[in-house]
């Protein structure tokens, strides 16, 4: 036979199968597999680049060079030559004076257009009026003040203020800067001025504590070129900040969301692979006679292989193209649905998602669809004379092994996360392992069971046991599908609830510190008068870790850039009990101790190189003392509650003078209360984090919505697997039921028995699923996503009941034909 004739036949074979309804589920499973993978990876890629842009606004730029010395002009020139937009920024704390006696410490930020390169600057014409987004910066000679500075300096718009030797006119109130949390420059309220006025102030002298920043914006390629050039020239105290240095809580949220989406995509692949395997098995079963006839008519094994191989390849191509289109549509739909809430335009997705999709299609075909089809070539032509003749050996163990390996490889490649992959595969293995044990038990009971058509229950049970082998496989596949869906629902629920718990309504959004010991009572009274609830007051003493186990640490003034084994300066506090949002990860929290103990935050402990049991030497003011590290703590810095790197039992630190810190929540319409506070306590410093918290919250909410949508897509994939699974077994059931009907069985008896049989299958599958889901969820939550694992009680009823309802429902619906169509028609068709 010539090659063109062969291709023609493969195409015809495919067309005839399509027309005969044989291909529907196989093709749908394949298209869905590719669609889900392409859709989710395109969405993730696109969302990630969009959100990265979003998180870059916390830097006000794509990249920032921060430095303690003035940034060489030649760097700016080079940035310009590299096609990058740039803006200089200089920050420092300084006293600001009004025309009279009034003065206060402010955090000065001198900027130039086009600051900011990313994000939006907001100002208002008067303090606490509605904020307006602007692309301008203060013109030379003018400043914008933080609303509180108006009160502290007793000035209004149009009045002059003094920064060093320069008199500048107040032109507005600065309300929001994109980089307010990453470019603090001291703790005072903000004064925004133009870089051009800097020289006139005469404030910057050699030795002044000044931060310089060069903001850079442009394409990734241009940035990379510039970074490669500039990095070797950077000196100590100069750092390059990228999107990951923006806002820790946003970054972590994005990372977890990305992991979740990739997990969802991976589960989609597994589900689709299961659907493909089931559909291909049924396809191959239904083609056994077809092949026997073809072989009796002279088709060789090679012809059969070529025919089905090329049909499969053709189908792969069709499904690949359709799947890519579906995937593209899924991500477009995601963005269309969330255009408003997401507030980000889709970023570039690149071709990678489509490459991943095409590979998924081919791997799924090769490892899940091809094994049952390959065995068609082994069908004996003698089947045309004797139907009972061997229909080709059943699925072989190596098919399962290769299938699991292929799936693991695909998931790993797709998620690039070994822990995530291992967790899911672990859950799968539990489901499959327990499933086969259960199946074996069923089979051993099932030997010698007849049809027992006497009662609904007996008929159902005997059917279940007689088809033990097929039922076992089906049960395991149902179990896997339900397990994966449960895992996703579980992880999503835990992710969302932990996000919500992270920043619940009323989360403190202001910090007040530099509170003197004697101010504690009157300040508390003022808070109480204003109806503001505060977190507990923590004493705060500045100190330094000097040595660990007698070994002196190297001196390093740069707190941010501290490396391992460097001295660290920090705020110390004391407390009897463990502060909120803190967890002891090593050692033990002190009880009623009189010993010199200390508890370190884990990252801090790492940076000074101290562990539980070590003795560290500390210095507060002119005094040095030793303390033993008795615990290491993990701190949830995102909780917005005061927390500390170094905590002592009260008796160790209370002899030193301390200032106090607290945090409190202020609703947007109560912001005016700040003025009262700063007027009454001018030495108390207040940091406003309300805008940042709102932004973090809105990003979390958007990502949460994206997750819900992806969950819905995966649940659809899971439903498809269940339908494919039921479909794969209905032929034999319909045939048996038709026979029983022909022999006089009542409709109610048959439907009842089918309903019971499928429901019991669903019950077993649900139990398997719950076991596997707990294992997978434990791995995912504790290892891959760093969430807190708690066994979920609702999982059991949910898994088991949904298994029974869905599989029972779909099973009965699929077998309706057995009782609704005259038995003769059914028997003739099969």
């Amino acid at each position, binding site marked *: *036979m*010539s090659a063109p*004739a062969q291709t*023609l*036949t493969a195409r*015809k074979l495919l067309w*005839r*199968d399509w*027309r*005969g309804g*044989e291909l529907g589920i196989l093709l749908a499973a394949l298209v869905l597999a590719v669609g889900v993978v392409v859709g989710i990876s395109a969405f993730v890629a696109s969302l990630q680049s969009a959100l990265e842009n979003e998180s870059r606004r916390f830097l006000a730029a794509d990249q920032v060079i921060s430095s303690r010395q003035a940034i060489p002009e030649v760097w700016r020139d080079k940035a310009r030559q590299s096609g990058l937009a740039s803006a200089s920024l200089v920050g420092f704390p300084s006293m600001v004076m009004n025309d009279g006696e009034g003065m206060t410490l402010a955090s000065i930020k001198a900027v130039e257009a086009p600051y900011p390169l990313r994000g939006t600057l907001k100002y208002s014409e008067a303090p606490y009026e509605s904020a307006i987004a602007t692309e301008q910066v203060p013109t030379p000679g003018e400043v914008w003040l933080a609303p509180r500075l108006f009160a502290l300096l007793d000035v209004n718009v149009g009045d002059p203020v003094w920064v060093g030797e320069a008199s500048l006119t107040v032109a507005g109130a600065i309300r929001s800067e994109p980089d307010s949390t990453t470019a603090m420059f001291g703790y005072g309220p903000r004064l925004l001025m133009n870089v051009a006025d800097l020289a006139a102030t005469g404030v910057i002298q050699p030795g002044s504590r000044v931060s310089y920043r060069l903001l850079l914006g442009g394409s990734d390629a241009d940035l990379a070129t510039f970074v490669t050039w500039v990095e070797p020239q950077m000196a100590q105290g100069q750092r390059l900040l990228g999107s990951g240095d923006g806002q820790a809580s946003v970054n972590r949220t994005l990372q977890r969301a990305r992991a979740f989406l990739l997990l969802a995509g991976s589960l989609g692949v597994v589900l689709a692979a299961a659907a493909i395997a089931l559909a291909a098995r049924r396809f191959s079963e239904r083609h056994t*006679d*077809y092949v026997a*006839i*073809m*072989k*009796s*008519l*002279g*088709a*060789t*094994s*090679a*012809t059969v292989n070529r025919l089905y191989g090329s049909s499969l390849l053709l189908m792969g191509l069709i499904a690949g193209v359709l799947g890519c289109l579906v995937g593209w549509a899924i991500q477009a739909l995601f963005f269309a649905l969330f255009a408003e809430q997401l507030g980000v335009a889709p970023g570039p997705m690149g071709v990678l998602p489509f490459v991943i999709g095409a590979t998924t299609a081919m791997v799924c075909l090769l490892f899940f669809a091809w094994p049952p089809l390959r065995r068609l070539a082994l069908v*004996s*032509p*003698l089947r*045309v*004379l*004797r139907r009972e003749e061997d229909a080709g050996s059943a699925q072989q163990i190596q098919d399962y092994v290769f299938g699991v390996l292929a799936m693991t490889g695909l998931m790993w490649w797709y998620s690039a996360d070994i822990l995530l992959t291992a967790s899911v595969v672990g859950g799968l293995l539990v489901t499959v392992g327990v499933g086969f044990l259960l199946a074996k038990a069923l089979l051993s009971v099932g030997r010698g069971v007849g049809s027992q058509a006497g009662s609904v229950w007996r008929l159902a049970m005997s059917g279940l046991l007689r088809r033990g082998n097929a039922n076992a496989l089906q049960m395991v596949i149902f179990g896997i599908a339900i397990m994966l869906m449960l895992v996703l629902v579980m992880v999503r629920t835990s992710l969302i609830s932990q996000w919500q718990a992270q920043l619940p309504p009323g989360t403190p959004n202001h910090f007040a510190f530099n509170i003197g010991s004697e101010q504690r009572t009157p300040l508390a009274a003022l808070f109480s008068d204003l109806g503001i609830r505060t977190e507990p007051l923590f004493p705060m003493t500045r100190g330094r870790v000097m040595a660990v186990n007698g070994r002196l640490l190297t001196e390093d003034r740069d707190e941010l850039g501290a490396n391992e084994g460097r001295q660290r300066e920090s705020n110390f506090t004391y407390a009897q009990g463990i502060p909120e949002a803190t967890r002891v990860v090593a050692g033990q929290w002190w009880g009623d101790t009189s010993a010199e103990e200390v508890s370190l935050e884990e990252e801090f402990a790492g940076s000074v190189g101290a562990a539980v049991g070590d003795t560290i030497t500390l210095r507060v003011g002119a005094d040095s003392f030793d303390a033993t590290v008795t615990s290491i703590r993990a701190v949830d810095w995102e909780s917005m509650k005061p927390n500390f790197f170094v905590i002592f039992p009260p008796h160790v630190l209370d002899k030193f003078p301390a200032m106090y810190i607290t945090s409190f929540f202020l609703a947007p319409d109560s912001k005016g209360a700040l003025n009262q506070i700063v007027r009454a306590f001018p030495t108390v410093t207040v940091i406003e984090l309300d805008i940042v918290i709102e932004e973090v919250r809105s990003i979390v909410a958007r990502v949460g919505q994206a997750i819900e949508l992806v969950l819905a897509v995966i649940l659809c994939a899971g439903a498809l697997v269940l339908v494919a699974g039921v479909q794969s077994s209905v032929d034999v059931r319909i045939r048996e039921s038709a026979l029983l009907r022909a022999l006089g069985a009542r409709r109610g008896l048959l439907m009842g028995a089918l309903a019971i049989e499928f429901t019991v299958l669903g019950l077993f599958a649900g139990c398997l699923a719950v076991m596997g889901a707990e294992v997978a969820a434990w791995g995912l939550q504790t290892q891959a996503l760093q969430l807190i694992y708690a066994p979920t009680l609702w999982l059991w009823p949910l898994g088991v009941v949904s298994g029974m309802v869905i599989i029972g429902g779909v099973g009965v619906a699929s077998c309706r034909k057995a009782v609704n169509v005259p038995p003769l*028609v059914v028997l*003739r*068709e099969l």
Partner: protein
Amino acid sequence: MITVNNLLKKVPVADGELEILQGINLDIKSGESLAIVGVSGSGKSTLLGLLAGLDVASGGDVVIDGVALSTLDEDARAALRAQKVGFVFQSFQLLPALNALENVMLPLELAGVANASARAEEYLERVGLEYRLTHYPSQLSGGEQQRVAIARAFASRPRILFADEPTGNLDTATGDTIIDLLFELNRSEGTTLILVTHDNRLAQACSRRVQLVNGRLETFL
């Protein structure tokens, strides 16, 4: 020309081996029509399967036009079937997903025949089903399905046609029509016809009859 030499077929059973065919010797000339008769379980279908190269003998040999089937593997036997053999089965063995025309086209497509569709139409016309081309098996009566199967068997112009109880699933009148058709095509195409049957009328229509009793050719009628 088919020669059968001391053909044996054994199958393993729970307590040893069962000899289904015990040394069959038979010569069938080209253009001859042969009926193999016998009671159920006498080994008729097994013999037919071996003659057609659908199954492998435990001993002895079948030689078709000088080629010993025992020297061929399954693929070579398939090639031989494609070239020389046609089948008609008791249960018709039409593919439910294909319509009448496509069912007849199938062996032609497998053999790479260029004008498969035209030839299939021609044979369906010869069996009187020209108005049923696009009908699916489930839409055809038993007799019509068997006529499609006969059209399919003759369309590839085989030298040998094997028929396994071709009237077994049909009523007497329909069976008669099928018998007439089978022999009419057999004559016009010059095919060697080998059939297994319980149907005495069909056996009588053949030029020669052999009877199988417990795996042996006992009587030549």
